[in-house]
């Protein structure tokens, strides 16, 4: 615990808690990807605590990749405390149950994560709202069909009161109106080879697009994960590949696009 964190503690003890600094906790380091491009675009607050952050996969079938991206974001979370991860049963069936070995592999202690599975997607708002009322949580994460505008508004307000960040992973590829502080669209990008074996897969890559940032500006990047530093890193451009800021779509086309249209029937 560094000095800043201690100050934060003292501030809370004195009753100046999250309310004092609704935008996030100044005592904690800023929460961001750790890559120059996106960090600059996010603005001074980074991924603010006490706000809703919306994540959408570029295609519905990219949801696991999105979860992998968000998991790594959680690893970088400066706040201490447990994380509540709420999923619909549909998400569990369709995209698989979370594997804790991977959590640990990525650097997030599985013991910190409390899972909630929902029979019905309508319960999502209730659970997230309840959870956002607990400042002891480090983050609240929902994974399910997109929320209505009203629901996002309520979540954003609840998050603002407690200072806990709320991450919502929409399972549909279409974006819905939302009051989220940041809105991300995440798809896969060819990742790095394994350091010891060029033919084996290494760290995955993501084509990340920041569609909206309340305090920053939109942008698109390709990133990968650096296991050593627990931060994202820019994805080196393969020779002859598209530009780093490209949407990544064109490369995926040969293999993916045909299926993506058919993907609607996957459920």
């Amino acid at each position, binding site marked *: 615990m560094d000095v800043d964190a201690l100050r934060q503690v003292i501030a*809370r003890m004195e009753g100046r808690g999250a309310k004092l600094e609704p935008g996030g906790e100044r005592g904690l380091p800023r929460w961001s990807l750790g890559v120059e491009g996106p960090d600059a675009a996010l603005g001074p607050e980074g991924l603010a605590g006490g706000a809703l952050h919306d994540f959408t996969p570029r295609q519905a079938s990219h949801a*696991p990749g999105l979860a992998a*991206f968000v998991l790594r974001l959680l690893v970088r979370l400066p706040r201490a405390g447990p994380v509540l991860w709420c999923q619909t049963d549909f998400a569990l069936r369709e995209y698989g149950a979370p594997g804790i070995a991977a959590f640990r592999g990525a650097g997030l202690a599985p*013991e910190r994560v409390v899972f909630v*599975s929902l029979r019905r997607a309508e319960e999502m708002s209730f659970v997230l709202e309840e959870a956002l009322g607990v400042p002891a949580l480090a983050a609240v994460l929902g994974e399910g069909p997109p929320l209505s505008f009203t629901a996002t508004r309520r979540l954003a307000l609840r998050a603002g009161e407690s200072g806990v960040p709320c991450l919502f992973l929409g399972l549909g590829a279409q974006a819905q109106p939302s009051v989220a502080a940041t809105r991300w669209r995440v798809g896969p990008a060819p990742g790095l080879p394994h350091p010891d074996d060029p033919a084996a*897969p290494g760290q*995955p890559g993501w084509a990340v697009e920041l569609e909206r940032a309340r305090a920053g500006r939109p942008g698109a990047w390709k990133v990968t994960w650096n296991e050593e530093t627990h931060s994202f890193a820019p994805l080196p451009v393969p020779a002859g590949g598209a530009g780093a800021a490209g949407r990544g779509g064109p*490369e995926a086309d040969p*293999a993916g696009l*045909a299926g993506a249209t058919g993907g609607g029937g996957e459920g």
Partner: protein
Amino acid sequence: MLVERGAGGTRITAASREALRAGARPGQALTDARAACPGLRVLQAEPEADRALLEHLARAAQRHAPIVAMDGPDGLLLDTTGCAHLFGGEAGLMADCTGRLERAGFTLRAGLAPTPGLARALALCGTGREIVTAEQAAARADALPVAALRLAPERVVLLRRLGLASVGALRALPRATLERRFRNRDAALSVRLRLDQLTGAVDEPLAPLQPPPLYRVQQVLPEPVIDVSAAGMVLGDLLLRLVGLLERDGRGARALTLTAFRADGGTSAVRLRLARPSRDAARIGRLFADRLEEIDSGFGIDAFLLEAPVAEALSARQDSLVEDLAPAPDARQARRNAGAGRAPEPPADSRPPSRAGAERHPPEQAGDLFAARTGGVEEADPLAPRAAVRAGGGMPRGAGHPRRLSHALGAGRGAHLSTAEAGPCHMLAVDGAEDIVGFAQSGGEAGRRPAQGRDTEPGAGLATAGGGERGFGFGQAGGEVRGVHLARSGGVEGRRPAQGRDTEPGAGLAAAGGGERGFGSGQAGGTERGMPPVRGGGVEGWRPAQGRDTEPGAGLAPAGGGEGGIRPGQAGGAEEGGRLARRGGADGRRLAQVRGAGPDPAGKAEGGIRSGRMTGVEDSGPLVRTGGGPAPAEGAGHDLRSGQESGAEEAACPAARSGEEGGRSLVWSVGAGRSCALVGEDGDAHPGPAGAKPAAGSARRPGRGSAPGQGGAALPGAMFPLVDTLANRLGGRRVYQLAPVASHLPERAMRRVAVGGAQPRLATAARATPDTAPDTAAWPEAAPPRPLRLLPRPEPLEVTAALPDGPPLQFVWRRVRRVVVRAAGPERIAPEWWHPDARGTAVRDYYHVEDREGCQYWICRALAPGGPAAGRGAWYMHGLFA
């Protein structure tokens, strides 16, 4: 008339009065009866339905007494100890009880007497509504016919032939000659047994329908209500009363049941479970409020009963300073919690623990605790421990004995048997001596926790310090906390390990004072090791079994332990040593935290040593101290630091100190003395293993220590109200954490565990079953990568370009063609042939592949059952990395 088809043809099982008059007899063949009386109306007997009805009546009878047992096919036994005054005395109780059944159309005979045997006899042969007091009991028993003894019919006939028509005549005979009158010994013994049960010379255990709740409050409504919203109002009242009881004993409810008794004799119940013990009436009220609609009011509800079938020590766990700020339990609770001296849990993440907060044990609170406990003490029964032990194994068998219960009730502690005996113990918690008693029970249960896999944290342990009651309760509960609490006095143990945290400490158990616990422990710990007997502490660690070997401890602490000494060795005890006991327990934990947190080896090592030392010494120290007074909480506080010194001197003269406690402390001091001898000052006296272990343990730790969280312990207390809200709304299984399982099969390698400790299981499930031993494992050190999402069932792939021995070049999954650009593997995973459900599973070769788009998958190929040589089978998608 009822008949049942049996081996000898259709026979009559029961007959109405009219049929009896007509000559039908139970046991007679139907054809014979028909011959005598052709007009008989015959119905098929339905023993199952009868039993269900009886059980239903038994449940309804719980409004009269907490312990209700079904007796034979047509009887109910109620332990009314302490209940009569609620109905205006025994006569009122009898009238209310029989009146309700009569109104419902039952014919019944009842008897109320000091022993179950006599009550039964009165019901059989008395006037049908007879009440006999303790003074009249002997005389009344003598007047009963021998048929009241519940002997086999031929024996009754034999007694009659011998001219022994009444119980009095039988009792007048010298016992020896009585035996000689029977041809076989069984007959003689059964007569003697029944006779003794009648007079109360032999205890007759009841097997209650459900374990008697430790805490219950009841409200009878003047008029039946149909509107369930009335329940809300009544509930508010009941909760306040229940909370008062819990508060007095320093306990918190882990499970609650609100039972509505309907005017028509039915019952309807709402059950609530809490992730953490609580006695916050407002919070519990809110949780109930959501569920009151589940109550079926039928024709109206005329009474409500609120019980806490599972209550645990509620002490506080102060996770960190920060946590206090969270919307936490009310101030009073927080204060109490702190007072209970619970050892703080490690903070939720990898931050170093904040020591200042962690080791604070305000002395005034300690005082509070002491006072609270003392209040309950009534008398110490030196024999109690043994009885308690038995009870601890599961159902309180001894519960039937009114005499014992009565203390309990008198003391205001619930009618639990163990409790009763534990009355004294309770107190003990504070003072070492008694722990003994407590232990046993607790030990037992503790053990089982693990089984459940609670990862949770805290402790599984159990402390049993004071334990009397908890035996029962605890076990189930899991003890969390208690550990500490009791800890002090008592045993404790952490099950931490299970969580995988290897780290820590301890699984062990502490048996501090503990005499009998042997028993308990054994089970529990599983281990058993236990030596049961050990009085001073045996204990055992059960860790090993899991494979965890190692470390930490399995420990156990033998604190007092004479024989314990041995044990530890096995267990591994190194640390344990330290742990030991009483405080041991506590410390154990403490240490653990420190260690976990700080990766530095030195720290740990130190810890280890320390523990070694403490063993003897410390143990005794605290306990003794407690005897003196305020110590407990404090003890816990300094386990780490000052434990040693204090321990040392006191150890020297434990007996003297404990003298204050009088008889009770006796045992303890013995324990303490011994342990000193065994362990010596710094633990080297302990033979090899113990000494060696610690070091080893600590050395290993650091490596793992780096793991980030601390297991379930990582969850701050503020989280639990949320967990309860969600679990009660969505269903308990839908809020969970994941824990590793020692299996290399990906689909078995983890499992869901309840947040915050195993949900308490009720009733008979409390017994520890070795087979359910936890599969729980620690995290593998270097595991091959595993996917983030694992599909619930592998989905078949259509592979369009396979290489003979490698991953496919292309495959179609969910109708999308994916071109593989990178692949790693294969990783061959064979079925666990030793596992019953793994039979028939194929060997699988797994590949980690990345497609052109950048998605990473975990695909596998099932090999034909004959092994790799037999050919290759289908491809499946099993997981997704990204």
